[in-house]
């Protein structure tokens, strides 16, 4: 399975450039899928608006400081993917969007859903998004270590176009 990194040109702000991934065969990028699905659920709209406002504020004014993002406590060597989640919401846990924060200037927005369980890998809504976010995070980290991908300011640079493909 291949996931390709794409920039979201509409979400290229002064301080942060946002990217997303397209998983082969899905027909749309992960973040677009998240926006489309969540927008169609009226109960989620308020939280979705808060998440979007967060993305915009971080992008325009503050930069993607690590402390602005939450992540699960895991014992693996790599930190687990970050997530964005407003406090009040339709469930105890709220709407959650997984992302990979690469630097204060680059964030890869992925997917998410309404979390209904303490542990994301046991939540029927979030488990697959959490699993994908973990894989994407690892693969990007490997690609950077192997210098197939480079971070330059707000840009994710690659040696060749094929290097934007992550083999999951």
């Amino acid at each position: 399975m291949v996931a390709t990194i794409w920039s979201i040109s509409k979400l290229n702000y002064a301080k942060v450039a946002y990217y997303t991934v397209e998983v082969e065969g899905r027909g749309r990028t992960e973040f677009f899928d998240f926006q489309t699905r969540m927008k169609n659920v009226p109960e989620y709209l308020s939280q979705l608006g808060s998440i979007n406002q967060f993305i915009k504020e971080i992008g325009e004014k503050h930069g993607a400081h690590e402390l602005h993002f939450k992540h699960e406590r895991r014992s693996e060597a790599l930190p687990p993917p970050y997530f964005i989640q407003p406090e009040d919401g339709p469930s105890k846990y709220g709407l959650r969007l997984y992302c990979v924060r690469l630097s204060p200037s680059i964030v890869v927005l992925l997917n998410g859903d309404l979390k209904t369980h303490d542990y994301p890998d046991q939540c029927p809504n979030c488990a697959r998004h959490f699993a994908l976010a973990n894989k994407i995070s690892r693969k990007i980290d490997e690609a950077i270590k192997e210098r197939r991908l480079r971070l330059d300011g707000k840009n994710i640079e690659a040696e060749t176009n094929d290097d934007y493909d992550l083999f999951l």
Partner: protein
Amino acid sequence: MQKKRPNEDFSIFDEVLDKTPEHEKIFVSRSLEIANQIIIVLEQKALLQKELADKLEKQESEISRWLSGFHNFTIKSIAKLEAVLGERIITTPNQARTELSNRIEALVDDHIKTAIERIRSERNRPESRVPTQTASKTVTTNIVTPRSCKVVNIHDFKKANINNPDSHLRPTGT
């Protein structure tokens, strides 16, 4: 073959924002501003999140929630934060104007005081009271300082008691 960029219209992002009540957007904005201000102060004071948690007698996870940008801070929490950090976290526009005005006033006062002191000290300098004299054409200057006892032109002076810091040199022929 180069991959084709997905044809997606992300105006959906702004459509969601347009439908979001203004107060909810302002809430996220203010919460992030406060969170960011706390982060700035932590960095300035080289304080870790854990250390702040210890000082406030809270769990680190609670501090982490504060900094995530969605926290509904109470005035009490902010007061405790300001007390522990020794720095203001929030201010109102009126307070900011008053503080700026006070700082400008203090700055101007300082400048005026410094200028007055400089003028006074220039008037009080002993050498400024010594009249300019030209006893002989070889005296190029008669600036004398009690402490240094510099001899400016040795040919015009009969004695130079340079080892006596209290002696005063005077040009001859005066």
